[in-house]
């Protein structure tokens, strides 16, 4: 009897050892905001594919891009799969696996239910391609949205007072001009009866945040019929900061007006230059402000906020004033130096599948990239606003450059924008020309 147990245990141990030794170990690098969702998707995938072990390594946003680039250029192959920010597409593309070529070489690995046409077209390109190379599948769809206090906007007393003061109905602003009036109305300093201390929370620190926040204001000018006539169509690689010819577009009357819109709104916001993501999230969550431009990831935190309950009645989501919110988001791709390309390919197909996309949104508020998920009844029951605001925001989104020089261009512009908002530099075309000249020099134009 005892011998039988020992033998049985030995067999189990040998089996475990063999299965661990034979398992493919995938190393997945991820930004922290994607890590929890990826972890669950990895668990699901491993249950269906016991031959694969997946290790998710979250790396902070500031660290992830340099680490990816360092690994790709050296060919070290320290990771198999990574989430990559859409802005880094141009820099990392040479070291990433071309998924279309790989799928053609390995048709047996292609999931017949993957449905590549289901991706939202803009998302498919910006989170997937650099030029003609498919460097990833769309993982995290994102544009900024305009969150507002639904209960305050529908309050009859506030509506009457607003109409008496401004001669129009109190409504969620559709332009930044309207936003200024509404923000003033909800700021105690200008309206002592305001139920909130400030009208709007703005995050304008000297970080990459300012680079994308400015685009929420410049985008509407750049994408207006006049803007298109003046600057040409937007190229998805060069983004809205550039003309169709690849020259800076922000050093213009439109660029100055966009900055003026920001300056005008700052007086209705708590500490805009000293606030970043966390501060504005907190300001809205604690009921201090009536409106805030933010990413969808905030929803998870606000849903827990006692001051915002019942959530569906208190928080509304709309398209950004001006209708051209900045896009964000991540692709999921494979290191060309990976030794586990087959397993990695199977995993990224699952993570970006319809099932994965739906789990990500419902549990982690990671924006969907698939049309079928945005139209899914369960998803719409959970987030009815998606139908109105989501596709419109993604389709009309303004884009940051995806070219390799982006981080340097970003830092130069952010430095100057911050100085202008601080009042250290005049808001003029001449000031913005200084930045444009530096950009042109870096780009060799």
């Amino acid at each position, binding site marked *: 009897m005892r011998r039988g147990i020992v033998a049985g245990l030995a067999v189990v141990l040998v089996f475990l050892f063999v299965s661990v030794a034979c398992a493919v170990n995938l190393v997945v690098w991820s930004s922290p905001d994607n890590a929890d969702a990826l972890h669950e998707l990895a668990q699901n995938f491993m249950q269906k594919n016991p031959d694969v072990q997946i290790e998710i390594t979250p790396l902070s946003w*500031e660290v992830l*891009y*340099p680490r990816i*680039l*360092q690994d790709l*250029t050296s060919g070290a192959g320290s990771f198999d799969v990574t989430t990559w920010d859409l802005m880094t597409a141009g*820099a990392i593309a*040479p070291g990433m696996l071309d998924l279309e070529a790989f799928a053609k070489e390995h048709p047996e690995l292609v999931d017949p239910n993957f449905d590549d046409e289901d991706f939202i077209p803009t998302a498919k390109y910006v989170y997937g391609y650099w030029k003609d190379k498919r460097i990833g599948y769309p993982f995290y769809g994102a544009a900024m949205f305009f969150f507002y206090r639904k209960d305050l906007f529908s309050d009859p007393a506030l509506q009457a007072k607003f109409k008496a003061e401004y001669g129009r109905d109190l409504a969620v602003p559709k332009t930044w001009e309207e936003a200024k009036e509404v923000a003033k109305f909800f700021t105690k300093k200008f309206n002592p009866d305001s139920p909130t201390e400030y009208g709007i929370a703005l995050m304008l*620190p*000297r*970080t990459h945040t300012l680079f994308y926040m400015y685009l929420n204001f410049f985008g509407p000018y750049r994408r207006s019929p006049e803007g298109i006539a003046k600057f040409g169509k937007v190229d998805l690689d060069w983004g809205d900061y550039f003309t169709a010819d690849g020259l800076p577009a922000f050093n213009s009357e439109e660029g100055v007006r966009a900055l003026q819109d920001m300056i005008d709104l700052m007086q209705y916001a*708590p*500490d*805009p*230059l*000293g*606030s970043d993501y966390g*501060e504005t999230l*907190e*300001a809205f969550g*604690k009921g*201090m402000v009536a409106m805030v431009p933010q990413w969808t990831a905030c929803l998870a935190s606000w849903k827990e906020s006692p001051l915002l309950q019942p959530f569906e009645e208190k928080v509304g989501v709309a398209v950004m004033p001006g209708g051209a919110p900045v896009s964000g988001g991540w692709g999921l791709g494979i290191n060309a130096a990976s030794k586990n390309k087959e397993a990695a390919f199977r995993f990224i197909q699952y993570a970006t599948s319809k099932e994965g996309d739906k789990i990500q949104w419902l549990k982690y508020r990671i924006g969907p990239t698939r049309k079928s998920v945005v139209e899914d009844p369960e998803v719409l029951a959970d987030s009815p606003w998606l139908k109105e605001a989501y596709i419109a925001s993604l389709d009309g989104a303004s884009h940051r450059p995806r070219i*390799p*020089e982006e*981080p*340097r261009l970003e*830092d*130069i512009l952010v*430095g100057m924008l*911050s*100085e202008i*908002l*601080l009042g*250290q530099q005049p808001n003029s075309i001449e000031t913005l020309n*200084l930045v444009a000249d*530096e950009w042109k020099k870096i780009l060799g134009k």
Partner: protein
Amino acid sequence: MQRVGFLMILPLLGVLLGLTMYPFGYMVYMSFFRYSLASWEKPQFIGFSNYRDILRDRTAISSIDFTVLLLAVAVPLEILLGMAIAFLLRDTFGERVFRSALLIPMMVPAVVAGIAWKMLYNFEFGPVNYFLSLLGIPKISWLGTQFFSRLGVILIDVWQWTPFVFLVLYAGLQSLPRDIVEASFVDGASGFSAFRYIEFPLLRPLLFVVLIIRVIDALKIFDIVYMVTFGGPGSSTHSYSFYIYKVGVSFGWDIGYASALSVLLLLAVSLLVNLLIRMLRLRETLEL
């Protein structure tokens, strides 16, 4: 015998050269190249172009501004406060407790300190503004205005590094021969006279060493800026070392330009330290 001694230290010398001289030499070498990982191109020799570009680089020049301010304000404050605390704490009741408590800021990792101070400086919910409001002072935007963000970073630096100055000078004070001071009291010297003419001159070598260490450290300030202000608002708290990090890492490993920036920082540190050594006649004082 001498040859054996040389052979014995040869491995250590090799490690030392490998870890210091080689990276230094490589940095100087790379500063003459255009080489950025993001471009996926091989290094290209460009002579002094990187150095010429620095002279026209607005961000690099504005970074010097804040670095010099920090050097001029934070370091003297730390020396004065550290020295004052060392003298005041000596032979007082609860000396051991205070001594241990004072060392805490120095032991806190800069990243943790940065997060803590960012919360303390929070405009709406931060304890600093709360306590100031009890005194009737309106809310201060510690991270959103030039003056206060600079003051904020200087205060953190002083908070973090005054204990170091205190520790060195306090240890120095303990080692001073007490009989000389006591003899001066017998001769009618006041406490201040004893400090002015006996203790301070005896402590001077230590003070100079502390000063030089702090000058070098202040020129390299990075972590607090990275964690608390990220150089803003505008270029208010943008330090030179922080800029080197951004160019060298965040911009996609622009190794050539970051190397040139680093070489200039090294030159500035070396010049300043040598100048201090000459001005303070440190060679004679420390018998170098």
